């Protein structure tokens, strides 16, 4: 995870858009908290700078919220 964040940082995109959360399948509250947290962070970071200049699917598989479960 940290390594992936580092790789993103290297490109200039920054590490903030990628985060790993460990959530048990039954732990709904935790899931909600994670989504909220990530949404807030991404909103703070602003739109993905690549979005304006790429065609869909061109750049990569990084989703905006970047949440894994």
């Amino acid at each position, binding site marked *: 995870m940290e390594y992936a964040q580092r*790789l993103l940082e*290297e*490109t*200039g*995109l920054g590490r903030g858009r990628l985060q790993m959360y460990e959530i048990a399948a039954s732990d709904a509250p935790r899931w909600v908290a994670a989504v909220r947290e990530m949404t807030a962070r991404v909103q703070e970071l602003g739109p993905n*700078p690549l979005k304006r*200049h*790429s065609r869909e699917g*061109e750049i*990569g598989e990084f989703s905006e919220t970047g949440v894994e479960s």
Partner: protein
Amino acid sequence: MIIAERKPFSEIFESVQPYDKILLVGCGTCVAVCLAGGEKEVGLLASQLKLAAGLRHRRIEVGEITVERQCDREFLEPLCDFVADYDAIVSMACGAGVQFLAQLCHFKPIFPAVNTTFIGVNNAMGHYTERCRACHQCYLGLTGGICPVTMCPKGLLNGPCGGMLNGKCEVDPQKDCAWIKIYQRLELEGRLDNLTEIVPLHPHARCTSPGTVIHPAYKRRYGVHE
């Protein structure tokens, strides 16, 4: 095997700035084992290049291919056709592989993506240490299997030096003094006599670069006469 480290991303990105179509060539042997230039690393680098280019409002095309080894002609020859479609090649192989690739696929600018560091061993995933300096005159039989040329930073053939401190090396206090290890090993094997004679000066002439080795069975084929 050969251990390498991936170059800083900025350096790689900088080197391919002028090009729009880049082919990344990975190597499936040494650099794959040390997680620097194998298929996975090719994929990661390709993504990074595209991301970084995108951030700078550029669209680049990055091809990805990994071959078994870049130091063997049989694995490189099929690549020649591939290469024609691209403006530049980035090889993730060690220095030897990069050069072989450069030779075979000429007239395309080629850039290395890793810094080759040393001949070493795989202690554990992600942890590699140097063991051999290819000095052309192996002393391992004399020193109980511990290389004085490599494991001693000074490469002393008659050690230890006066900087040895509590069994550790003056250069790196985390590292054992190679000569202490050699002594202890030979002592255990009852072969301390090996250390009575002064080991003579190392013959460096044979180490002149670039070196060539012709296997004895092939001497006639390559015109080497006894």
